């Protein structure tokens, strides 16, 4: 934070002058960010302050813009998952699966039930880590560091499961067209069982620390509230929208990957304030755990982990050495020569922050003609100045972390 040199024609100067002429008091301009420990990412806001109250804010974004849409236009389809990892890096597997689901919709590939359930499990694990980070960081911002450290070790446990599934931890690049790159090892299921046993205990304790905590309630209730109409107008989706009382969830509205097989509730809030956002995320973690348990219970027998689509799915490496057909498929896939129709497809999924959509236009060549990411953070972050008007500076920080704006997703 520090003072900023704004150009003389900046719109803030008008207000500063007006106020000065009125009663001689002075409004201040404060630069919050771009790199500030309390913003958990690269966000710059130029604030117009009256004492400690915020009158107006002007966000600047794009500090970590990496031109993913342009890069995607120059890459074969299966090389695009690593880009999606880096959007919402708190829940990479959801982004990965969203990309495969887009391609599978485009290519009309039906994948085995078991692979779909495995995907559901990994997506819900990702949702848990996403909400876990958001809520525990919110705790840090309101002055409760303990909860954060306590639940953070469970993110580590989830990452160990990812590691067992795909070999990577944060940027997972998980899955392939038609399923997973390999079957889940018994150890992955073991780790999952341990997680399902230990995590609910810790999460319950975490909840108890916060939900009726006087300090936490004072800091969050009626802070950064948003009406459902305004939330819709600003393109809110996901937990932030549901906190305002609208029960829109892509998993229910447009079920993908067999979400229709599971029973779960959509938690909604009432006032759309920071406290409600916290509670909605908390409740969603319990729903995610329940979905994972149901998926494990209903898991079909067998070991199908990918669809039988030799045009798109790499053959086992041993076959490539001994079998002509496998060698041809291997060569074609690695060279990016997969048959793709000329079409346009939009696939939404429920990401950690809301509706994550992939709009893909193909022209039959090796790369997408156009790939647009509908990034929920990018769309709802524009409501931030509106939400912090009239709030204290410390509230602005709390609102920002409760919105769970992820810089990678914001800038893409």
């Amino acid at each position, binding site marked *: 934070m520090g003072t900023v040199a704004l150009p003389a024609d900046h719109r803030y100067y008008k207000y500063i002058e007006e106020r000065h002429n009125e009663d001689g008091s002075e409004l201040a301009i404060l630069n919050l960010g771009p790199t500030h420990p309390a913003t958990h990412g690269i966000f710059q806001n130029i604030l117009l302050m009256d004492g400690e109250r915020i009158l107006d804010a002007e966000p600047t974004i794009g500090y970590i*813009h990496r031109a993913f849409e*342009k890069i995607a236009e120059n890459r074969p389809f299966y090389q695009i998952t690593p880009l999606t990892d880096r959007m919402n890096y708190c829940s990479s597997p959801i982004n990965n699966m969203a990309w495969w689901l887009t391609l599978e919709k*485009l290519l009309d590939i039906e994948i085995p039930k078991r692979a779909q359930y495995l995907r559901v499990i990994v997506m819900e694990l990702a949702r848990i880590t996403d909400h876990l980070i958001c809520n525990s960081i919110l705790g840090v911002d309101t002055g409760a560091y303990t909860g954060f450290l306590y639940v953070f070790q469970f993110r580590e446990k989830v990452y160990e499961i990812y590691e067992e599934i795909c070999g990577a931890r944060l940027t997972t690049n998980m899955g392939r067209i038609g399923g997973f790159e390999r079957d889940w090892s018994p150890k992955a299921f073991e780790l999952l069982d341990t997680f399902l046993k230990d995590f609910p205990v810790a999460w319950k304790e975490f909840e108890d620390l916060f939900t009726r905590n006087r300090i936490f309630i004072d800091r969050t209730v009626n802070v950064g509230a948003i009406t459902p109409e305004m939330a819709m107008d600003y393109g809110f989706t996901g937990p932030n929208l549901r906190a305002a009382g609208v029960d829109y969830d892509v998993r229910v*509205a447009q079920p993908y990957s067999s979400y229709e097989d599971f029973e779960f509730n959509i938690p909604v809030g009432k006032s759309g304030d920071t406290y409600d956002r916290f509670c909605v995320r908390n409740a969603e973690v319990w729903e995610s755990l329940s979905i994972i348990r149901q998926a494990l219970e209903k898991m079909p027998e067998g070991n199908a982990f990918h669809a039988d689509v030799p045009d798109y799915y790499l053959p086992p490496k041993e076959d490539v050495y001994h079998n002509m057909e496998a060698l041809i498929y291997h060569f074609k896939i690695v060279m990016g*020569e997969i048959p793709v129709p000329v079409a346009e497809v939009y696939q939404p999924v429920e990401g950690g922050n809301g509706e994550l959509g992939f709009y893909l236009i193909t*022209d039959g060549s090796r790369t997408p003609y*156009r790939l*647009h990411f*509908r990034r929920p953070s990018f*769309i709802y972050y524009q409501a931030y100045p509106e939400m912090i008007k009239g709030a204290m500076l410390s509230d602005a920080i709390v609102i920002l972390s409760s919105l769970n704006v992820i810089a990678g997703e914001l800038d893409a």
Partner: protein
Amino acid sequence: MALESVDIQSKLQETFGDNVKYFRTEYDMFVLEADEDVVYNVIKFLKEEPALNFSFLTDLCGVHYPDSEENEQFCVVYHLHNWYENKRIRVKTFLNGTKPEVKSITSLFNCANWMERETFDFYGIIFNGHPNLVRILNMDEMTSFPMRKEFPMEDSGRTDKDDRFFGRTINNSTI
């Protein structure tokens, strides 16, 4: 009663006549094209007509088609969603290649603000009536529009990623 694509089509055709066309269903999405001078009204109609009620703007983005005719070189794609009937719709409008301009829909949807800025930033499409049409993700000093197809992505000397080596052109037609 569910909202059927044919009803949307007949309602739109009643109001806008030949300015809305090419109604079709692509995968699970109902798609239509609107002329650039009526697209604002089409979206306003879709949003405000009680029977249609497409009150949520899911997405807005641009596309560049440099090989098309002069008047169809840019495309702005709107995705709208009716949450009550759970119906999605895609509205496309094609713009002139040298003077891509279209009326801004920020007055209808606040969330269109940054999406239009992003589209302007990457394609140079002018949204008339936008309150603050400046670059958003790229730096302000930039002069080009990087998502246009002519903007080079990487070393143009590289030929190993060239489609010609696979016996076809971008359009997947004959060489």
